[in-house]
């Protein structure tokens, strides 16, 4: 559907980059929102799967943000004459990408899963300040990036021939993320079960080898 959409009167065929750039950009912030909710789940409700959901979403968020940045850059070169400018929208999305990478790194740097979950949950919630900055960066500062044109007061400014394929792509990207997220959460559950079984097996191996006192077995 995106391939069959007509060319833009100003941008020509390069407008087709929109069909991957914009859904990826929506998802990059949506996934961060999911992670922030999961972090609340970890810190406030202490749901046992909340940190698995947070952990599973981070690499996917980084992936979609990467797609957003690269396609935006490839769109910027022919349209703006540059791959990259340090303007508010681009910089704030780059900060989001680095936040995702930082969260993944933090998960991996703390051995105790409980501690890692709390630390990343706190950092995730601190990073939420970036979301309104991304959203309103195009209104608050002078920027090359255009302001919102799909969800805005007074209706969309995109022609329906271009808008429909965009919405279909956005739904497709979102469904892909939800599917991958569920699969990644299942992977986390499997990983925990393996860790538990390995510990039990190690403890049993120890008890067979050393025949510990009841205190030690606990």
């Amino acid at each position, binding site marked *: 559907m995106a391939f069959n959409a007509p060319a833009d009167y100003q941008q*020509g*065929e*390069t407008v*087709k*980059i929109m069909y*991957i*750039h914009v859904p*990826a950009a929506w998802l990059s912030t949506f996934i961060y929102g999911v992670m922030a909710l999961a972090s609340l789940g970890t810190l406030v409700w202490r749901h046992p799967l909340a940190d698995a959901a947070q952990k599973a979403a981070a*690499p*996917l968020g980084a*992936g979609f943000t*990467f*797609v957003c940045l*690269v*396609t935006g850059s*490839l*769109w910027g*070169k*022919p349209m703006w004459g540059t791959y990259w400018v340090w303007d508010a929208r681009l910089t704030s999305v780059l900060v989001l990408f680095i936040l995702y990478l930082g969260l993944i790194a933090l998960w991996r740097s703390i051995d105790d899963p409980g501690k890692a979950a709390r630390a990343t949950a706190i950092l995730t919630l601190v990073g939420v300040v970036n979301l309104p900055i991304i959203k309103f960066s195009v209104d608050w500062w002078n920027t090359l990036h255009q302001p919102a044109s799909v969800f805005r007061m007074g209706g969309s400014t995109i022609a329906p021939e271009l808008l429909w394929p965009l919405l279909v792509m956005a739904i497709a990207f979102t469904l*892909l993320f939800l599917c*991958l997220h569920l*699969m*990644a959460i*299942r*992977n986390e559950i*499997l*990983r925990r*079960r*393996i860790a538990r*079984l*390995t510990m*039990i*097996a190690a403890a*049993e191996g120890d008890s067979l080898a050393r025949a510990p006192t009841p205190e030690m077995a606990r």
Partner: protein
Amino acid sequence: MLDIPHLGYIVAAYGVAALALIGMIAAVWLDYRSLSSQLEALEKSRGGNR
């Protein structure tokens, strides 16, 4: 078809996006396969001990 201006940028953008998406799908899927085979091996060895 080939006289579209900036065709290279469009193809590159779709190419990068396809690679990234396929990469994510493959990473999650391969992770699942390796985890489930590990789990199977663990459960088998535990069953064998009893």
